[in-house]
């Protein structure tokens, strides 16, 4: 197995938990198609997170299977074509809250280990 493949695997592993949350958060602004979601995450993180389409689409379909988003073909306002728009469901909204709080707990826990002094304040 090549080293490239290994790297790719590590990156996917890193994003696995968070990508779903990021997508759900992005959809909170309103319905969007895959390309928009990818671009948005990329732009918002100042290109820090290079969106891999190879994980974006599987993630979208996974979310749809779980019923957190629904999809519909709709014409884009600025293009003369239809795109597959994903929209957050109520279940998805709840899931976002859950993932958000989990992420927060996780970040705090990591922070407490990494920067113990800050906790004393």
């Amino acid at each position, binding site marked *: 197995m090549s080293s490239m493949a290994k790297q790719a695997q590590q990156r996917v592993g890193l994003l696995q938990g968070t990508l779903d949350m990021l997508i759900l958060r992005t959809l909170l602004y309103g319905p969007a*198609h*895959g*390309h928009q979601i990818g671009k948005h995450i990329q732009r918002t993180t100042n290109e820090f997170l290079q969106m*891999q*389409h*190879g*994980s974006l*689409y*599987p993630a979208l*379909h*996974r979310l749809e*299977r779980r019923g957190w988003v629904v999809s519909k073909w709709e014409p884009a306002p600025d*293009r003369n*074509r*239809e*795109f*597959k728009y994903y929209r957050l469901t109520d279940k998805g909204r709840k899931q976002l809250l859950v993932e958000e709080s989990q992420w927060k707990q996780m970040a705090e826990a990591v922070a407490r280990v990494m920067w113990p002094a800050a906790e004393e304040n």
Partner: protein
Amino acid sequence: MKWWQIKKRDADLEQELRSDLELEEEEQREGGISGEEARYAALRAFGNPALIREQTRAIWSWTWLESLARDLRFSLRTLRRTPGFTVIAVLVMALGIGANVALFTVVRGVLLKPLPFHDPDRLVMLYEAGLHEDDKAGSNVVSGGMYAEWKKQNRSFSSLALTQGIRVGLSGSGGQLPEKLNSALFSWDLLRTLGVQPALGRDFMQADDSPAANGTVLLSWGLWKRRFGGDPAILNQTIELDAEPYTVIGVMPAWFDFPDPSTQLWTPVYHEKPEDTMTSFSNHMFRVVGRLKPGVSAAQGVADLSIISQRIHNAHLNDPFVFRSAKRRPLLEHMVGEIKKPLYVLLEATCCLLLIACLNVANLLVARAAARRKELAIRTALGGGWLRLMRERLMESLLLSAAGGALGLLLAFAALHWLTRTRHDMSRVESIHIDGVVAAFTVGVIVLCALFSGLIATFSTSDKRILSALREASRSVSGGSARATLRNVLLTLEVGLTVILLIGAGLLLKSYERLRSADMGCITQDVITMHLGLPDARYATPAQRANFYDTLLERVRALPGVEAAGFVTAVPGQGYGMDWTFSVVEHPPLPQGSGLFALSRWADPKYFGAMGIPILRGRTFDGGKRLDTANEVVVSQSFASQYFPGEDPLGKHLRVRGQNSVIVGIVGDTRYAIGEMPRPVQYYPLDGGVETVGTLVIRSRHDLEQFALPVQRIVSEMDRDLPVSDVLTMNQLLGKHTFDQSFNATLLTAFATLSLLLAAVGLFGVMSYIATQRTTEIGIRIALGAKREDVMRKMLLDGMRPAIFGLVVGLAASLEACRLIRDLLYEIKPLDPAVFSAVAATLLAVAVFACIVPAWRASRLDPIQALRAE
């Protein structure tokens, strides 16, 4: 998501990716990159769409099914490419699976399904036992008196009921001919004991079951449909049985066939039988069914009855035929007793056949795997997963056995249809049908076969020596022979199993032949028999009966073409019939508690001549002595030697039922049933007018069947309501009684022939394969000057090796396996040398035949062609 949505989903994903990719491309173009460049830039940013599609697809769990479908498609394509192989493999599987499913269905229907009675586990069949002090094995049907005592005194059975099979004549009515029917006597509580209700009308009541009651009868469903058009109005109508009126009180359900499948009507026993029969302790004629009380075991129940029997025995020490104890058999065993063993033997045979079929298919698959070795090695080298390749292989064998199974199920269906039509005589034949359990069994067998044959083939190619395979395949001169080892082992097994089947079939066939050629002690050619029974009501006095027989015989003998005719209560081969106790007047009285009995027959004076039973000494009856003056008796040779050792029986007197008869002649021994040893027989003159039921025999060199009509005409002229039944030539009569044996022998022979065929196909396949593999080698040998005879001999020997090994293995295994069928054999030992050597010779001949064509072809190889072939 449903399967039909898969396509839609795929299209959807494709479109989604395409539109997003196009958008990316437009954006790139808007960013100032032009034309083709924009497209590549977009692809770079986007990634490989095909891969993304695959990865996204993997999210949906249907993929495993899709890959299964892909395997299926692939296997189908592979199989379609080799139609010859596919057809043979499917047929082989179909035969194996079909035979198994059919036999399993029969075994399940007959032996495994519970009897259709209420709580059948509580039912037992009861017999009397212990005629002699030390007699442990023997048992006998029950006497009416003992039954009555059992019923009165026992504390273990909630009910005891009794039955006896008889034959009655149903008088003609409404333009229908009179006919003779198998019937059964029931005590009034028999149906209640079984827990069965009539389908129409009512059950017997206690009041029906007495000599004083009016006659009542229950009809079988079949008789009701056939004879009375299925009309419910028959209830409470009167029909005539043996010239006496009987009121039809009910019709039994179609499935009900107790005590045996031929029974067509039922009448109450105490109404039919005289009181002295029903109270006698020594006149044994009934079968007793008991229902055990809850919590009482069968052994306890029988012990209870045995105590009663012993008490009765002790009270009647002067009567030598009062038994001492009771015995039991499970009801199911009683009903299917004789068919059980052969069925299991046949089931074992079909299992063998299936195993052979699987081995054969495995063999074919191994051959294919070997032929595709290079392809498989290349695929493995290119990273094809071993699991994936194995799955493909298993899919192939699963397809083969599924197709075989489907075809086999059809075969089984046809076979069962045939069986239920030809074997109405088999108990419980009505409960044989294909149902859910059989379907599940079929699926199980299919999966088992697929795994068995598939795994053998898979493991034959599972070695990891890809390189050697590639190298070997690139220039195989003598390669691939290692692979042939596995096939040879499979073949050896196959041949071994075939030998076992062949020997089993050979033994059954030979024993059947022995049975059919057993000397019955009388002529079996050119003799026709017809059954007649005089109803007591119209033939009440001995004079009426004797007159009827005299007139009948006189008129039959006058028919053109009749060489001889006679009348007897039972001809040889018709069964045990009746035995009577007797004593020899000239001998000192026997000690108290012992007595003599022998088969008894009533015959007219010319019966012996008509049947070709030789009169060894003395003479036949004096035709002039009739009725009360008919006081002569003829005995058989074994009677003479057993009861008159060292003295002359002629002139001695036998005392039977208070009457003395003088022995006037000694005739040759006969067998009461085919396959039974000759037993002593005492013949009494028909002219005594005692008997009402018997068989007319006619001997003629002309077409025997042609006498049926004239005789029927004579009988109906003498008595319009008298049916003539069972018109059978002696050969047919004997054939009927050996039907089981011929049936078993035929089936087993069919299985053995099939497996021989399969083994031959297997041998042929392996030989051809080896020959093809070694084309180059043989070509070189021939080119270097090897003699064609030598090549042929070598090839032949190679092919014969597994056959000979298999033969040895099979012969050794047969020594053990043949013990299984020992009970089914007649007058031959399981280790019959003739059968063993015949089988060995047949097998070797077939093996040579299967090997000789490929070997001959190999020896005829043109070396130039052979060398060019690679």
